[in-house]
């Protein structure tokens, strides 16, 4: 596979390490009343779609950036690649 890195251009996926669903960015509030349940869902339950899947890849043999790659799990077609940091901020994550 080839991942079109937003800063570096097309790179072989072998340079990357895969983590999983990009929802892993959305770490729950540890102080919420339902924190135990929320962390269970965050840690263990997955949509696992047959189709478009936003997922986290780490450019370990590259610039060490985490990327959110949107890829179709039935065809492997990649439709977007974003810097995970930008995605995290857009989701309201900060310090």
């Amino acid at each position, binding site marked *: 596979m080839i991942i079109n890195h937003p800063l570096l251009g097309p790179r072989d996926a072998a340079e990357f390490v895969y983590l999983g669903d990009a929802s892993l960015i959305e770490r729950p509030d540890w102080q919420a009343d339902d924190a135990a349940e929320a962390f269970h869902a965050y840690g*263990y*339950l997955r949509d696992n779609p047959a189709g478009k899947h936003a997922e986290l890849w780490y450019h370990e043999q590259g610039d060490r950036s985490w990327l959110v790659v949107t890829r179709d*799990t039935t065809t492997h077609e990649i439709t977007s690649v974003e810097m995970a940091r930008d995605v995290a901020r857009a989701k309201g994550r900060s310090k």
Partner: protein
Amino acid sequence: MRYSALKILREGLTGNKGWKPVWREPDPKPEYDIVIIGGGGHGLATAYYLAREFGMRNIAVLEKGWIGSGNIGRNTTIIRSNYMLPGNEPFYEMSLKLWEGLEQDFNYNAMVSQRSILNLFHTDAQRDAFVRRANAMFLAGADAELATTEQLRAELPFLDYENARFPIKGGLFQRRGGTVRHDAVAWGYARGADERGVDIIQNCEVTGFDIENGKCRGVQTSRGAIRARKVAVCVAGSSGRVMAQAGMRLPIESHVLQAFVTEGLKPVLPGVITFGAGHFYVSQSDKGGLVFGGDIDGYNSYAQRGNLPVVEDVAEGGMAIMPMIGRARLLRSWGGIMDMSMDGSPFIDKTDIDGLYFNGGWCYGGFKATPASGMCYAHLLAKDTPHPVATQMRLDRFRRGNLIDEKGQGNQPNLH
């Protein structure tokens, strides 16, 4: 039709024209006691044991394509019970015992071949972990045997002992492990279930569940609605897709595992051999091909095909451990979709929806589990209580924190 040497003789003399279909091709009835979704190894085994062990006959197995088209027909055919944890080992040992009597049981030669499985180790820490595992196997009534490098040299002289990057320090044998002709397992179970009245319905895709007031009352299919008292999902590889129709999210990701076979060769490998410092395991089929595999590709996929990096990684592992296979040629590669669960262990459980049952999450180890999975799922469906060897294979174990994590990799499915 009972198979026997005599029958083959008689047919051979009369032009092989008397053979009958191995299973019927019935149309679906409007209602069954139990509808099993998925005509793979586990689904067919479940139907077989429901009929044979629990006397239930009014059962349908629904298969969207042809039976055995899933992972039962695309694996590396290995059977073993060399697990470590109490949540797993008794289950897999029961499975191995069922394999040992399977062919006489269903009168079909699936070529269960207990040629042994060997896990090589290359560090002291690996050895310690294998000793712990071997002892767990003994505690569960299984067999295990530690081999020194000297013993291995004598038994398997073709491994690389002289020039290895990660020298072999020994191995763990399970002599009762081995291989089975995978397709024949599906056909044998299908035949046995069909003989006992189970309807095996091919080309019948489930398109939805009929859930009324929190109770599952049947399914919608490409061949019409079918009512059922109980609906048993058994579609590893497609679990996410199917259970989404019931509105459930699962602790499962779907990943692709590639497997490979070489051109046919005269016998070189006695049993199954697994490399401990890289991703490579191999056996030789009765036809002579070296059947081998390694790690999953590592990304979510339903595509039933993989990519080159893993092919190369597996070949590197093979060359590292047995460089005499360099001139053997890879003939065919294929990919199967694995239900990779969050701790690497499976589920056989009721769901929160009354009448809807789930069996899945087998990771890349589903084949060896086929008989026990079928037996335990049948037990659960018939009695509504888990079979004693499957009590921990529950869907809520992550909420409770009762992990069955053999590899210690945590909630990252592609590492299991």
